[in-house]
């Protein structure tokens, strides 16, 4: 502090007004103002882990490409439906895309961003978008470009993974306790299937533990299936949905060896959400200041962090 004080009078001036504790609290409050801030922080952490610890991981260039695509689509679509431009959800989509997707050319991340955000605006049912943008972006790219687009689930080492789970869990707890049910519903069912299968086969438990140690699964569990917009409104509906996605994912892996299994399963089952909302209705999220289009439709997903924090809200890509 002494050193910086000598060279940075401005810094000293800033610190003079508040002590360190206040500064920290202020910072946390600022981040907590929007639940998406926690997600952006956590995803940025995961992105950096992927960049620095893997040979075949995320690259800044890919993030830039995804970011450009997602932001362009978001800006254009906001203009078309005359709603406020929201950069945070598109940024979350870009980070998810660059962490999860691998492709042969940089423009493919751009395309995935455009497809993901474009479908967020285009495919909607009762003012909820059906697909998680990053998920559908990757799935469409995989289906269209075959082997030129892929997902590398095995490319995370043990230590980065443990760090990743901690960061992701913390972000989820901080951003919305409401979404823990679907995350745990999914990972619990998926783990139960893998452990159950190992028990039946007489395999060592190291096998299901190893199968659960996947970076793709981590990002999927905490940042995709927890998307409040592409998942059912009611808790019962969410748990049913989580169990279905987990079962289909497990079958995809054990059976026909479908690549990007959890993403494919989520994309395929996202069409269930409108039906689950119909049969298991519940109140939609308590909106903060939802951005409404002319027709009264909103295009972002926003929900309070906790019921008491009036200003905080959660929005997902």
């Amino acid at each position: 502090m002494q050193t910086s004080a000598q060279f940075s009078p401005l810094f000293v001036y800033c610190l003079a007004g508040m002590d360190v504790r206040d500064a920290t609290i202020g910072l946390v409050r600022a981040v907590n103002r929007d639940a998406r801030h926690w997600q952006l922080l956590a995803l940025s952490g995961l992105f950096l882990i992927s960049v620095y610890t893997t040979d075949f991981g995320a690259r800044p260039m890919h993030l830039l490409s995804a970011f450009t695509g997602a932001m362009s689509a978001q800006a254009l679509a906001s203009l078309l439906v005359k709603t406020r431009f929201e950069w945070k959800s598109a940024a979350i989509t870009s980070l998810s895309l660059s962490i999860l997707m691998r492709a042969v050319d940089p423009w493919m991340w751009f395309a995935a961003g455009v497809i993901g955000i474009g479908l967020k605006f285009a495919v909607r049912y009762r003012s909820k978008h059906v697909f998680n943008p990053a998920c559908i972006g990757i799935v469409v790219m995989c289906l269209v470009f075959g082997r030129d687009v892929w997902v590398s689930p095995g490319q995370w080492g043990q230590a980065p993974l443990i760090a990743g789970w901690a960061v992701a869990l913390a972000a989820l707890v901080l951003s919305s306790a409401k979404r823990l049910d679907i995350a745990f519903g999914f990972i619990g069912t998926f783990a139960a299937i893998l452990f159950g299968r190992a028990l039946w086969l007489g395999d060592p438990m190291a096998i299901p533990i190893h199968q659960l140690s996947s970076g793709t699964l981590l990002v999927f569990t905490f940042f995709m299936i927890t998307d409040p917009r592409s998942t059912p409104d009611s808790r019962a509906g969410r748990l049913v949905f989580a169990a279905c996605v987990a079962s289909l994912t497990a079958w995809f892996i054990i059976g026909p060896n479908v690549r990007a299994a959890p993403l494919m399963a989520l994309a395929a089952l996202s069409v269930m959400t409108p039906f689950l909302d119909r049969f298991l209705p519940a109140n939609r999220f308590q909106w903060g200041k939802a951005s409404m289009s002319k027709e009264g439709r909103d295009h972002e997903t926003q929900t309070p962090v906790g019921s008491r924090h009036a200003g905080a809200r959660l929005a997902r890509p």
Partner: protein
Amino acid sequence: MKLRHLLGAATLGLASLGLSAPANAFCGFFVAKADTDLFNDASKVALVRDGERTVITMASDYRGEPSEFAMVIPVVDVPEREQINVANPGLIEHLDEYTAPRLVEYHDEDPCNRIQYRETLAMAAPQAGAAMDAMAEEAEELGVTIEAEYEVGEYDILILSAEESDGLITWLNQNGYRIPDGAEEVVGSYLKQGMKFFVAKVNLERHDGAGFLRPIQVAYEDEDFMLPIRLGTVNAEGKQELFIFAMTRKGRVETTNYKTVKLPSNMDVPIFVKDEFGDFYKDMFAHQVEKENGKAVFMEYAWDMSWCDPCAAEPLSRSELQELGVMWLDEGGQDQPQPGFRPGPQPVDVFVTRLHVRYDAKTFPQDLTFQVTGDRDNYQGRYVLRHPWRGDFNKCEEARDYADELVSRWDQEAENLAKLTGWDEAEIKEKMAAGGYSEAAINIDLEPKDKKPWWQRLWGNG
């Protein structure tokens, strides 16, 4: 016809790796020669994959009594006779040499007078490297069914199905397949998944007495692209060594359930590594495995088979690739060799990935699963020797600067080598000094007293 879940078998593979004999290559030549066995107990598997079509070639460097040899592989379906073949052992050797990590030599030019340099190359490459009725009766009693039996080359091959692992293991042990203790769980797991077992033994009457056994090949179609390694971990004393040479028309192959890591490459190392390249490669690999806690698959080569630079060996010919199972070369008429084509490597639509795995049941609990990616970025394990120019370092200003650079370069080489292999840096430096690669060997005073300050050299007005 589906055949899935092939397994690195109980006695599959004992390969050795050494340095190759001198041979001409199109962009340099090999200089090192050694017969060191680098990796014992290594299996080598070539996998050709296109869509769901797969051809697996399993080579073993088994040197023992042919009667003692046995191979046990879980498969999903009963293959037909035509799906099984024996291959020329030279194929995998060639593939191994072509993809091996390589050592490249450069000779520094006279800093006072630019001259031509010569590039030479060394590489670490593996060297060459009955009574059926009674059998069936016994099998039936133990709940084992012989689904098919084939004679292929020197091998007698049986496809077995079983109700439970105990019966199958008893039958296999009774019939000369020595199944290690502790295999029940793994065999049981495969059986519960509905798999059959492909077992092969050498028929001594058909064996020509050659010192080696030919690789067994199986062609099959399945959506799963994987290699069963679990049975291999049961009997293993210590870690198992596995080389996978994956060939696709699309691009690089990676493991989907384990981290794939590039072996560190393109680094300058001290000259003495030339004489111990085998040890260098072995220790480097061990050190890198340790750094990843034993839990990574190492990519040692990923290249378009049409060329190489520098070449550790010529790319495989079309006929060799076809023998290995590359099934798309004749399809669509695109890859036909053109008449009058220049001699040398012909362009072929094959991308090869060499993966090196050191595993045991603890670090690799699950069978390896792979995916083909569209990534065609070339990668090779390449280590560089730079021979210094030896002359009068006081001859010109450039020579004095060169001498200065040389010393820091040698420090860097020592540091690189220590980082790559985990060898002691002080010992490396000692060894370098003994060979004349240290400050003491340069007859110039490197103290800055007679050196001009950098700003004097900056605009040439010093």
